[in-house]
């Protein structure tokens, strides 16, 4: 696809050996591909897990579903695991009705749950 589409990059944070990407806005295809590349490269440089926080994502179509599955497949080959956190109920219902299953993907209700799945104690649940 065309190169000029100005892919906005999703920032990836590192917390110990876990990489965290929080998608807060509408993703273009190019942004999704850029995130896949960034996460795979960073995971190869050393990470035990990847969390993709998608509470800001309003739709997942088959293209984004494929990108998420491929990130999970790549990280598992690199000895890490990918957890998808915070999927909106409307997105989950739509995926099921479409017949899409996010094969190989772990999901968690929140970022905190995702961290504990990855064996990371995370911040103490204060407040």
């Amino acid at each position, binding site marked *: *696809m*065309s190169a000029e*589409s*100005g892919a906005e990059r999703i920032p990836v944070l590192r917390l110990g050996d876990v990489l965290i990407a929080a998608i807060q806005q*509408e*993703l*273009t*295809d*190019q942004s999704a591909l850029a995130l896949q590349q960034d996460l795979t490269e960073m995971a190869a440089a050393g990470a035990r897990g990847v969390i993709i926080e998608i509470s800001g994502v*309003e*739709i*997942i*179509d*088959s*293209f984004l*579903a*494929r990108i998420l599955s491929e990130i999970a497949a790549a990280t598992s080959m690199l000895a890490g695991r990918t957890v998808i956190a915070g999927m*909106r*109920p*409307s*997105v989950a*219902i*739509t995926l099921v*009705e*479409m*017949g*899409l299953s996010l094969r190989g993907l772990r999901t968690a209700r929140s970022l905190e749950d995702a961290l504990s799945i990855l064996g990371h104690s995370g911040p103490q649940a204060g407040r």
Partner: protein
Amino acid sequence: MSPDDVTRVHIGSDVQIAGARQAVREAAVAAGFSLVEQTKIVTAASELARNTLVHGGGGYMDLAVEDGPRGQGIHLTFTDEGPGIKDVSAALSDGYTTGNGLGLGLGGARRLVQDFTIDSTPGGGTTVTAVSWSRAGQRARR
């Protein structure tokens, strides 16, 4: 529907796929669609817009809001002048893919809307229509 009620969105890049999604979401909100209904029609629009771009070489989406007996509906038409679909029923079956997705684009989109048609001839382009109604209409259908 009268022609001046139709919004046309050109689909020539992935950014314009996002633009098509945005236009459909705004129309669905204005038509009183629930959050789940909005998500379904926007997801279907995303699949169909990508189909127009990737397989049709680009085209456009026409969006119209219709008044039905039990509420408003969103009527989407995707048109391209691409190579067309040789076997429409195969293209609608799960797992049919040219390698770009999960093979669920057209079939998945069909499952997310209430009315769905494909008109395509090899060499003659493709027109896909998808229609969804807000909740009152859906209940009547079930």
